């Protein structure tokens, strides 16, 4: 593990974050946008765990932060999918362009 510098792990997490951002910008389907959000949350988790392992190996705080992020991501995904299913019932589409009833 010590042969790989920390910046290479940060490269992976940064690339993952911006891949998620690209998906969030280009996709118009709500489920695929939710997938992009999951990628972004995962990149943050990689950062926390890698910093904990490389810089503070005697502590556990990064582990706890990533565990709490995982729990919040699970709650967020469940609520988002409930909203998506409700939207599908009302609009028969989960495209974000279709749900423009409140647009001014």
């Amino acid at each position, binding site marked *: *593990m010590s042969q790989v510098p*920390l910046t290479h792990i940060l490269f992976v997490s940064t690339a993952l974050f911006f891949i998620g951002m690209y998906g969030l910008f*280009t996709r118009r389907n709500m489920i695929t946008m939710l997938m992009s959000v999951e990628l972004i949350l995962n990149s943050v988790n990689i950062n926390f765990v890698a910093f904990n392992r490389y*810089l503070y190996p005697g502590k556990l*705080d990064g582990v706890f932060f990533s565990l*709490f992020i995982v729990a919040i991501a699970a709650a967020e995904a469940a609520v988002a999918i409930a909203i998506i299913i409700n939207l599908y019932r009302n609009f028969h589409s989960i495209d974000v362009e279709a749900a423009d009833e409140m647009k001014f």
Partner: protein
Amino acid sequence: MSASAVVFYILAAGILVSAVLAVTSRKIFRSAIWLLFSLTGIAGLYFWLQMEFVAAVQIVVYVGGIVVLIIFSIFLTQQSGKDLPVPVRGRAVLSALVVGAGFVLTYLMMMRYSFRPAGSRVAVASVGNIGAQLLSTSEHGYVLPFEVISILLLAAMIGCIVIAMKTKPENK
């Protein structure tokens, strides 16, 4: 290059390639499966970092929970075999440019900062240590966030049921 480094680079390439395919694939179901591969690769990265508990949580919650939930909702809301629309070319090019610029900027900033690794001290991330500190009420304990997040999960569960509940028709 040692075997450990080779394993890391293979994992990293797998994570990034499947993440790119997950956000660009035309078929939504394939996109979900690529997301599954990417999340599994991240769990492998945690194993490689010797954080076994986080890797187990990643597999149980993400691969076993969230991706399955996403696949179920695809089945509920999507006509099978229909491709997703191609993104508008201008928007795709513009967002690729913005994302590329952001990535280069962030990575350059990161390269300029010299991280000082703490050497190869023994890691303490055993499951016993994690559990003891997570539920400890002393100064560095995490019992308050633990309780708060359990309330949050309960609230999210009730909220999901309320949001997704079918409303009864009024004339019945």
